[in-house]
C-alpha cells in the first residue's frame, strides 16, 4: 500500500481549504471563561489543603526545596548544640544545675501542740488524735443540748438578769 504524496496532490490542496474555516472573530476570547464557569457551576472545582498546594510549588522550585531542607537541618543542628551545651554546664557547676529539675525537698514536720486535757474531757475524747485526723461522727455530742450536763461537767449555771425598774 503506497500513499505517496503525488498521488493525492490535488486532494491535499483542496483539504488546505479546511484550514481557512475559522469561527467568528473573538470566539476564543471567552472560550476558556465559559469552560471555567461551567466547571464552577457544576460544582466540580477541586478544593485542596494548603499542604497540597504547597507541594506543587516546592516541586516546581528546586531552590526553594533546598532552602527549606537547609532550614530544617540548621534548626536540628542548633537544637542539638544547645542541648549538649546545657548538659556540659550542668555537670561543670552544681549551682547551675537546674533547681527546678532537682529532687523536691522533704516536707518539714510541723510540731503539733497537744490537745489540752480539759478540752479533751469536755468533748468526751480520750485518745490523742491530732487536728489532722478527721472526726467522723454521725451524731452531735449529747451534752451540747442538755443543760443539766453542763452543770455537772463544769462551773456552769443559770444566770438571772434583773432588769432595774425605771
Amino acid at each position, binding site marked *: *500500500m*503506497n*500513499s505517496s504524496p503525488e*498521488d*493525492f496532490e*490535488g*486532494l*491535499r*490542496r*483542496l*483539504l*488546505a*481549504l*479546511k*484550514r*481557512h*474555516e*475559522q*469561527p*467568528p472573530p473573538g470566539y*476564543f476570547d471567552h*472560550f*476558556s*471563561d*465559559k*469552560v*471555567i464557569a*461551567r*466547571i*464552577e457551576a*457544576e460544582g*466540580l*472545582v*477541586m*478544593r*485542596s489543603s494548603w499542604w*497540597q*498546594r504547597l*507541594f*506543587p510549588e516546592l*516541586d*516546581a522550585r528546586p531552590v526553594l526545596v533546598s532552602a527549606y531542607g537547609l532550614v530544617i537541618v540548621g534548626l536540628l543542628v542548633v537544637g542539638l548544640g544547645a542541648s549538649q551545651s546545657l548538659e556540659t554546664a550542668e555537670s561543670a557547676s552544681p549551682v547551675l544545675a537546674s533547681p527546678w529539675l532537682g529532687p523536691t525537698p522533704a516536707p518539714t514536720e510541723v510540731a503539733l501542740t497537744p490537745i489540752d486535757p480539759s478540752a479533751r474531757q469536755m468533748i468526751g475524747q480520750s485518745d490523742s488524735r491530732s487536728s489532722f485526723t478527721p472526726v467522723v461522727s454521725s451524731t452531735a455530742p449529747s451534752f451540747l443540748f442538755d443543760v443539766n450536763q453542763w452543770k455537772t461537767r463544769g462551773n456552769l449555771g443559770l444566770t438571772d438578769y434583773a432588769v432595774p425598774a425605771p
Partner: protein
Amino acid sequence: MNADVLEKPTVSVPPASGEPEDERTVVKRAKSGDMAAYDELVRRYEERIYATVYHMTANHEDANDLAQEAFIKAYQALNSFKGDSSFFTWVYRIAVNKTINFLKQRRNKAHLSLNDLDFNAEHDPDLVALISDKTPRRDVNLSELQQKLNEAMQKLSEVHRLVVTLHDIQGLSHEEISKIMDCNTGTVRSRLFYARQQLQAYLSDYLK
C-alpha cells in the same frame, strides 16, 4: 474502532517534542485546585481541540459544545492523569472520544453549520492553483468548494474522517495520531490511504 477503547486516557506516551517545558507544572497547579492554571491549559489547546471537533462534525455549534465538554471532562479526570503522556495528547483523546460517540448517535442526522473562510483563503497558493489552473469547473468559487468538501468528509466513517482531519488538516504526525487513536502507525497509514481514496472519488469533479 471501538470508541470505548479510546475512552481510557491512560496510555503512556512521552511528551511531544517542542512542548512547553512547564506544562507539567501547570498541570500540577491545576490538580491542586488552581483554576487559573487550568484556564491556562484551556487557552493553550482550545483552538486545536475546537478545530479537530469542528472538522469532524462540520458544525460550529456542535463543535463548541463538544470542545467545552471535553475540557470539562478532562478537568473531572485530571487526578487520573499521571503525566506519562503530554496533557495535549491526553485531552485530545478525550475530545476525540466524545466526538466519535456524538457522531455515532447523530448518524444520518448531520447538519452542516460551516464557519466562514478567513481572508487568507483567497490568497492561499494551493487554492489559487486549484481553482484557476487544474479544476475542470473553473467557475467554482471557494464557498461552493468548501461545501462540497465538507459533504465528502461527512461521507467517510468517523475513524477515516479523524485520520484525515488529524493528518491532512491539522498536520499531526502518524506517531502522534497513533497515540491519540490508540493504534499502531501502520493502521494510521492504511486508514489514511483508504480515506484519501474515498475523498478523491467523491470529489473527482473538483480535482484533476
